[in-house]
Every structure is written in C-alpha cells, then in structure tokens.
C-alpha cells in the first residue's frame, strides 16, 4: 500500500493517525518507525484510531503509519499443533530464540515454520471437482492429529494439478484449482481473519457429552461437544486448576488453551506439565493435540483482546476438518477489561461499571462461534468447537456485568464457591447453584452408553444434596438433636456424596481422571449404602453402629482405585455392604 498515515496522538495502547482515508475497520497497520503491529478499531473522517499490540512508549506524533490492506489474520496449516503463541499468533519459542527471555518491540516472526517439510498424501486427483472445505490431502502432524489440508472456503472448481505423495513445506504449491475466476494455486497454509467466524453448512443440535474425567461435571452438570460453558469464581477458588483439568482430560481431538491476561507462572506450569502428561485414551503426550495461546497479564493489553479470537479461529479450522475441538479461555474477565481499557482511551460513553455498551454483544459473538456443525465440503463431516470460559468476578460478586452477560449466553454454569475452597473441598463447584441445560438432551446417551440406571442414581444423589441443605438450616437454628434418625441418614449420605464422590484431587495420579464407568460404579455404591442405612434405621439399628462399619473406610478410598480395577472394587464394596449390614441385624437380634 502506498498511502501512509501519520500519528497525531498517543495515549497508552490507543494511537490516533490522520491521512488514513480509505482504511477499513480492523485493518492491520504498522505503527511508527519501529513498525509496531496495530489494528484499526475506529474511523473518524480521515482519522483512524489504532489499538497497538505492543508497548507504545517512545512513539511520537508525526511518525508514519503503514497500511496493509488486510485484517488481523492467523496462519492455518501444519505446524500449529503443540505450538505456544502470543495473542497475535507469534510463536513464543521462536521469539525466545530470537530476542531472549524478555520481550522487545517490533519483531516479526512467521506463525508457522516455513522450512519444515511435511509428509503430504493427496486425496484428490486431477480432474476432480472440489468445493470449499474438501480435503486436498493429509499430513500426519502428530500421532494424535492428522492434519487435513482443506480447500479454502471461497474456492471451488476442478483440480488441474496436484503434487504426488512426498515431503513439502507449507510454502510449496501443492495444487492448482481451475475456477471460473481463473487458476488458483493452493499451499498447505491458508490465512483467515480472526474476527470473522469460518463458514459451515449448518449448525446441529449437540447430542454427545464432552467427557472431562471430572465426576461433578460428567455426572451432574455435563458439557456437550459444541457447547458453551462458564466457570465463574473469585480468586483462589480453583478456576485455573479446573480449566487445566479440562484441557488435560476432555475427550476432544484438539484442545486450545487461551491464557488471556493471566499469570505467567501458570502458563509455565502448563508448558512444563503438558509435554509430560499422557492422553488417557491413546498414551501419547497431551501436547500432541494441544495449542497454547499465552498472553499474560503484563503483556500488551490489545493483544490480550485479540487472543481469544486467535484461539477460536484456530479452533474453527480444526472443526472444519471434522474434529471435536475444546477451547478454554482463562479468563474472559481479563479480555473484557482489555475491552474496557481501550474503550476508555477512545473516550467512549461508558456503560455499566465503565465497560463499553457493546460488552454483551461482543461476548455473545464470541460464545456463538462455538457449536457442532456440518462442515463445508462435498462429503458429510461433523465437527465441533466447545468453549469454556473462566470468569473472574471482582470480589467474587456474580452480579457484575461480565458474569451476568456471560450467564445470559452459556448453557453450562459451573459456579465456584469460596466457602468450599476454604474448606479445601475441591473442585469447589457449588452443586446447588450450578446447572447444565444439556442434561435432558443427553439422557438418551447416558442410558445407552453408561447404564439405564444412571439417571435414577443421579437424581437420588442430587435430591440428597438438596435435602442436606434444608436440614443443615435446621441444625444451624436448633442444633443437631432436633433431627430424627432418618433425617440423620440423609445427612450422612449427603456427606458421603460430597466427600467420597464429589471431592476429587487434581494432583492425585489416579483421582485426577475418572471415567464415566467409574463415576457410575462409585455413585451406585453410595446410593446402595444410603438405602441400606435407611432400612437399618427403620429396623431400629442405631445410626452410631452403622457409622462404625468398616466398609465406610473402603467407600472413602474407592476413588483411589485404578481405572481398570475400579468397577471390580466397587462391586466388592457392594457385597461388603450387604454382609456388614446383615451382621448388624444379627447382633441386633441377640
């Protein structure tokens, strides 16, 4: 582009330039002598307001602004899996190699390795008709992800040329498509603007749970493939640990973890731990299916704003290949704060708590990019992007605008609770306030794939927890003596559900992941014990002697049973329950 703008004002990350006639909203620009990366976010006559993705100290009015004519985009192609990017898709390992451990400004590094050769196997031949979304060929990118090279959405025509199976870089031309507008040469890499959702044929209703290995989620408040969920919680309630757990154990093909304005040391933890962790289903390192986007709280705020779009665009790309993608954003509150700061710099009229009036629409735009879809292409492929966002409400007050606007969109609400966290009940998810609007549509799945009895057990467990709350209220007012024996049975059973089922240690090698079969078996044991307890109390057994049964010890430790033995262990506990209750009756008769 020839036209050059000129800086007229600098205020933090917001820079105003004039002589910008003809520029477009969200166009990418290079600001100042150091060519800092920026994006146009407002146009007033011949002036453009630019948010700059790097530190702006040192910029002067009068310095040039170069236009690029294209919007902020990401590069999509082999080499993306296992990478760690900043908010505008600059690879962090390469950045370190180039400039050392501290960030400097104005450096440009391609997002994907230009020189690495990939094994490409074509799946089309000369003369084939192709439309956008069709698979040109495949690249085994990691043992867990086969990268399907797609025809870009806007290209359709006839294959005029396609390379043979072999090793190619992403810059090599691998196919030529003859279209109405002339020949289009395709490479393995394509770009896509981050603020525009990638197209698909049609959105489908979700019908499969996104299993997470976390008992409270999978049993009580399930997430679906293609669903939207949020985890709000004050600091110290374990949001980040929960998101890490999801990133580790969610049964998705590709996981994208966006660290948006959070702690540097937490990203370091993910970077250190993930390569060592194995996928429980395949045994390969988890990094082989993971992409990290890390824009920590002290990195430029505008890039933080962009980071969640960068993440979800990469997610949609893998969805289009027919994969199930799970994206975690930690935290959407920090993203909203970036929005607020930039809005403030633009001197826009503030809405609630200083957030811009468009906060709600931006949030819903983002969450709506989640979903289960029928992808483009001439063959039928279904893919999904599930989104879980952490929310960090100030003072753990859920009435604040980011939490409230998020709740209006999402379908799964996992509410974290400070009191539980202080008691070290983890995950500190409050079972009375959390919900999943997908529970009903998944009933069929649970009946078919787990056990027909599962839903009944779940119903009983939730009822017990609800009753416990009511009874606790009485205890708080008049003391535990006011309760009848049968009410104490309920309290004991609820305590077992809380301590022996819901509590799950993210740091215990076995307990960190719990299969749905194990969830079912464990729940069955507890409900069984509860029912036996009820019968025994009716027959006059004092609750004190029930509570000294040795099997309680086994129940307390069943969560630590290895996955492959868990079902058997639970069965054994169930027979122990019968035996020990029977011997209680024998003593009673004597």
């Amino acid at each position: 582009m020839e036209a050059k703008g000129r800086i007229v004002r600098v205020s933090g990350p917001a820079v105003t330039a004039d002589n910008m006639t003809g520029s477009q909203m969200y166009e990418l620009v290079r600001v100042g002598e150091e060519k800092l990366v920026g994006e146009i976010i407002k146009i007033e006559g011949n002036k453009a307001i630019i948010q700059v993705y790097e530190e702006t100290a040192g910029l002067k009015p009068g310095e040039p602004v170069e236009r690029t004519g294209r919007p902020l985009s990401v590069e999509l192609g082999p080499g993306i899996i296992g990478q760690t990017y900043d908010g505008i898709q600059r690879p962090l390992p390469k950045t370190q190699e180039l400039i050392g451990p501290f960030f400097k400004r104005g450096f440009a590094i391609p997002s994907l390795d230009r020189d690495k050769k990939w094994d490409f196997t074509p799946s089309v031949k000369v003369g084939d008709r192709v439309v956008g979304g069709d698979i040109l060929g495949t690249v085994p990118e990691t043992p867990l992800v086969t990268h399907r090279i797609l025809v870009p959405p806007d290209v359709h025509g006839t294959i005029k040329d396609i390379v043979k199976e072999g090793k190619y870089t992403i810059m090599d031309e691998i196919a030529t498509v003859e279209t109405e507008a002339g020949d289009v040469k395709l490479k393995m890499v394509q770009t896509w603007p981050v603020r525009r959702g990638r197209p698909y044929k049609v959105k489908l209703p979700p019908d499969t749970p996104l299993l997470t290995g976390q008992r409270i989620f999978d049993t009580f408040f399930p997430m679906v493939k293609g669903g939207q969920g949020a985890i709000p919680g004050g600091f110290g309630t374990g949001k980040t640990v929960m998101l890490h757990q999801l990133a580790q154990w969610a049964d998705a093909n590709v996981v994208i973890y966006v660290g948006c304005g959070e702690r540097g040391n937490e990203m370091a933890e993910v970077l250190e731990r993930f390569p060592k962790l194995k996928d429980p289903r395949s045994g390969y390192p988890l990094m082989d299916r993971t992409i990290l986007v890390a824009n920590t709280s002290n990195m430029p705020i505008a890039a933080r704003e962009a980071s969640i779009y960068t993440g979800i665009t990469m997610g949609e790309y893998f969805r289009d290949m027919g994969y199930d993608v799970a994206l975690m954003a930690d935290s959407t509150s920090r993203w909203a704060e970036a929005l607020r700061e930039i809005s403030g710099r633009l001197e826009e009229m503030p809405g609630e708590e200083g957030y811009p009036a468009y906060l709600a629409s931006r949030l819903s735009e983002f969450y709506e990019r989640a979903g289960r879809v029928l992808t483009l292409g001439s063959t039928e492929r279904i893919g999904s992007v599930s989104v879980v966002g952490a929310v960090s409400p100030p003072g753990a007050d859920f009435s604040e605008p980011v939490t409230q606007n998020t709740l209006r969109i999402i379908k799964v609400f996992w509410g974290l609770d400070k009191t539980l966290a202080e008691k070290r009940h983890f995950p500190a998810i409050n079972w009375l306030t959390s919900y999943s609007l997908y529970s009903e549509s998944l009933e069929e799945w649970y009946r078919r794939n787990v056990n027909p009895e599962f839903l009944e057990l779940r119903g009983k467990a939730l009822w017990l927890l609800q009753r416990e709350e009511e009874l606790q209220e009485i205890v708080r007012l008049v003391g535990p003596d006011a309760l009848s024996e049968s009410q104490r049975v309920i309290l004991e059973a609820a305590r077992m559900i809380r301590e022996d089922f819901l509590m799950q240690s993210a740091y215990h090698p076995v307990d960190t992941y719990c299969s749905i079969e194990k969830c079912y078996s464990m729940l069955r044991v507890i409900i069984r014990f509860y029912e036996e307890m009820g019968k025994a109390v009716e027959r006059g057994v004092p609750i004190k002697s029930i509570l000294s049964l040795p099997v309680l010890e086994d129940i307390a430790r069943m969560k630590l049973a290895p996955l492959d033995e868990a079902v058997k262990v639970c069965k054994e506990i169930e027979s122990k329950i019968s035996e020990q209750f029977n011997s209680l009756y024998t003593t009673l008769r004597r």
Partner: protein
Amino acid sequence: MSKTILTGKEYSTVKEIAGPLLFVERTTGISYGEVVKIRTPTGEERTGQVLEVDEKRAIVQVFEGTSGLDVTKTVTRFTGDTLKFPVSLDIIGRIFDGSGKPIDGGPEIIPEDERDIHGAPINPYSRAHPSEFIQTGISAIDGMNTLVRGQKLPLFSGSGLPHNLIAAQIARQAKVLGKEEEFAVVFAAMGITSDEARFFREDFEKRGAMDRVVMFINLADDPAIERLITPRLALTAAEFLAFDYDLHILVILTDMTNYAEALREISAAREEVPGRRGYPGYMYTDLATIYERAGRIHGRKGSVTQIPILTMPHDDITHPIPDLTGYITEGQIYVERALHMKGIYPPINVLPSLSRLMNEGIGKGKTREEHRYVADQLYYAYAEGRSLRELVAVIGEEALTERDRLYLEFADRYEREFINQGPYEDRDIEKTLDIGWNLLAMFPETELKRIDPVYIKKYHPKYKEKKES
C-alpha cells in the same frame, strides 16, 4: 536518575496544572512515556513522565507533586528518554529515596547499565516453573501455605496488625534447604511511616544483613505520585541482580495500598472513567506489571520472589486492592485481626490463605512425603472446628456430639500450638509437621480420612513411638 541529562527540548508553555498533572502546549516531537525534567520557579528540579501526547500538547505527571509550580516561570525539558535506573552490583547495601537517589550519604553509584524501570514482560515460554521450597521458619506458611522461589505471595493485612513483623521474620529466616545461597533483600517502601521504615532498617542492621539489602524508601510525607515509580525501581534492581548476577532476591513491597491510592489520584486528575470505588479500570493490568516481575527463567540461576504487603481497607478482602492483587499473585497470606486480638502471633488465618505453588514445592525430597496430606487434614479439621465455634455461639456447647467437641478443642490447640510461635523462633519443616501430627493424634484414626494409611502407619505418633521404643 541521579545522572543529569543535558539533552532535550525545553518548553515554558505550561498551560494548566491539575493535581499532579501538567498540560504543556505547543510541543512537537514528544514521545509517549518520555521523561520530563521540570524546573520550578525557585530553581528546584523535579521529574515527570509523558502520559499522553498529541501534535500540540503533552500531558505530564510530576512524581514529586506540583506544589510550587506555576504557568509562567516553570520550565519543562523533555529528555527524549524513558525512565531509567542506573544499576550496578554496588547498589547492594545502599539506601535510596522513592525516586532512586541515594540518601545514605554514600558515594554516587557508577552505573554498569541503565535499565528502563518498566522492565519488559518475560516470555511465558522462557519461564521456569517455580518449585524450590523456601523455609521461612513460620509454621502457618511452611506447613500450610508453602512459599517457593520465584513466587509472588502477598500478605493481606489490616492497619495495626503485625504484618511488618512477619515480613521482617521472613526476610530474616528465609532459606532454601540444602543450598548455601542466601537471599538478598530488595525492600521498597511506599508511603509508610518513618517508624516503620526504621523498624526494617534496624532489623536488617541488627543481624548484620544490611550488606545484603537494597532499600528504596518513600515515606508517608514524601510525594504520593513518586510511589508509582518506587516499586518499579526496586524491581528493576531486583531483576538486574537476579538475572545478571545470579542472585536470589526477595522483594518486599510495602504498602501496596498506598501505591493504589497514588494510581487513583492520577486517574482522577486525568478525569478518567472510574471503575470500582474510584480506582481506574486498568488497575488490574497496572498491578500485573508490578507483580508479574517475579519468577525464574530457564537457563538463568537467579530468581525474584515477591512478598508484597497490603493493608485491606476496613479488613475487607473484597476491596478492589486485595481483590485484584489476589487475582494476579500466586495466593495470599491472610493476617487476621481476631487472631491478633487473641494474642496469637503470627495471626495468620490459614483458611482464606493460599499458596498456589505449594504443591510444586513440597513432598518427597523437598519437605516430607506426607506434607500435602497432613496439610489437607489440618485444613479440614480447623475449618470444621471454626464452623462449630459459630454453631456453639448459637446453640451452646451442650448440644454438641463427642466428635464435634473434639474438633472444637482441636481448633483452639491448633491456634495455640501450631500457628502461634515467637517472632524470632525459626521452626524447621520437620518440627512444623511433627506439631501437626501431634495435634492430629487427638482424633481417632478413622477421622484422618485425607491421609493415606501408609503415612499414618509411618508418621502417626502412636506408631512412631512404638517403632522408636
């Protein structure tokens, strides 16, 4: 900043003065963030920084305050340079004021380098995850909320509570087991009283530690806006010593509440849209640029560990200052008034306290293999005991069961025997965990659900004594 900068553009076109801000007109070629030297009508020199710039005017914040400035005789010189601090190994043992000028009567510092006080963010990919246990000798921290090297762990306190005593004790006793290296301390005071500053100074001197300490002092009667740069100077010094000279640095920042007040003052003067309680909407990001300057870097030996101290207004943990801090730091140590009133020192309530990096720093080869389990069990029992206290207040002790009474008694003993210790008592981790076990031995074994039975057999006093006898 003791160095005089001779270059730069001079303007005497101050149009308006509002609070700590100067509005300078008809400027050209001024860059955002550059340092401004201001000469007052009486010839005194002050320092400021450009907050906003357009083609015709620059807004400058003056760190030493604007009193005595006018619109006719005040001269501003724009230096074209960002705010820098001259660093050298010789800064160790020295005392500086809140804007980096030596105030101990010692010689000028001959700088090895000049570093931008805003630092640069560490590439998250280059960070090494902190995992080395720091023994502070304080049971409430070591046993329950372990600190590790490279962590940022603030003290959430209230006015009149002994947070300074605790911070000084940590500075005195902190060590990494099995390693010879001692910590060097970088101490930054923002708006504290001269009594408090003297306490720290004397405490360092008393144990002959001044030769391992760098102090930056902005007192309560020093200019408020200067507090915006004091912690950044301290962290620039800390990063230099840690990552250029391989030292392990403990940074104490006190009191971050005063820092946040200064931030609010600037924001109000700029007529920005206020966020909660008048604090600017960007306070989270601003605090992050301070707190995130802690950690370890792959391939570098040194480390920066931060202990910021803040006094919660009205002891309210949901106040924006502790709230936003808690969202950035890796946990918090909660100093509680009720415990202080009971005469417990350190009055740390472990329940709302947290160390996010604890798990990395404890366990076999670091502290003891059963540490996590003991801590969890103590947490559970203490939480139970405290909630029973509330119940007793309503319904009386008579209504309690045998089990409940045990927990009540535990909570009292836990506070008196485990939490309580002397300000000069340096308990090693073995002792801390043993005290924990002795308290847990009050309970029948079946109550110790959070401890792996293997460890009960190994460490429970009942079995231990048998083995030993």
